[in-house]
């Protein structure tokens, strides 16, 4: 059985893209919390984090539903 099958490759690409997203998300959160003046950037960072977490969970669940064998 080959290790380089399609589901494994796609999962690897997906994991890489999600990692890149969360790295970008970290930069947004870091800038808002560190450089933001006043309370509104902190509130904004919480809204961004909540939305990102929710959407990431949905994306991961939908990725799990994909059937690469029958594509």
């Amino acid at each position, binding site marked *: 059985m080959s290790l380089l099958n399609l589901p494994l490759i796609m999962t690897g690409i997906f994991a890489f893209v999600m990692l890149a*997203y969360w790295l*970008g*998300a970290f*930069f*947004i959160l870091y*800038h*808002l919390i*560190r*450089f*933001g*003046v*006043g*309370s*509104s*950037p*902190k*509130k*904004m960072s*919480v809204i*961004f984090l909540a*939305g*990102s977490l929710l*959407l*990431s969970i*949905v*994306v991961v669940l*939908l*990725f799990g*539903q*994909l*059937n690469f064998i*029958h*594509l």
Partner: protein
Amino acid sequence: MLTFSFFNKTNYTFEGKKDGEQVILFLHRHWWTIANRILIIVIAAFAPFVVAVAFGQILIAQNLMAIFAFLWASYYLLLWFFLFYILTIYNLNSWIVTNLRIIDQHQRGFFNQEVAELSLVNIQDVSFKMEGMIATMMNYGNIEVQTAGNDQKFRFSSIPNPQHVKDEIMKIADSVKGHNGVFNPIENPQVKQ
């Protein structure tokens, strides 16, 4: 809830704030300057609905609904990121007028920040310019602060209510003269914080 008090209690703290320094004016560009980019994101959010209506039957027939739903959610995740990227850059481009100085913060990307400051005692003249129909209707414009000693100008871009801001800066600048360059907001309650 003391733990979460930083969400609603603020002393307008910022990096490099000096002891006893108080924020008098905290300014951003007018919201209209980012409205077009926000509108593009809102319009882009409707694109998957259009695709679903136009190609729904084909997607079902070809058994591609699972991959379409995955791409839809991924697309929304990306839009969410870009929306907050725009808001973050907007938020970090600010002008802070304190009782000691004026700070001009420019953020052009995650790793491109420029900060300039001007002592209140160096302010010679403040002027504003409202240019164009939209700027006049929406009441925003550019403020220029002329400094003493050199030709350098401090420029506040697309500030809401520039006339009021100009007047406030002039009041602060006038009051610091003869007070060792420090503005006391308690002695000058007419300046709104």
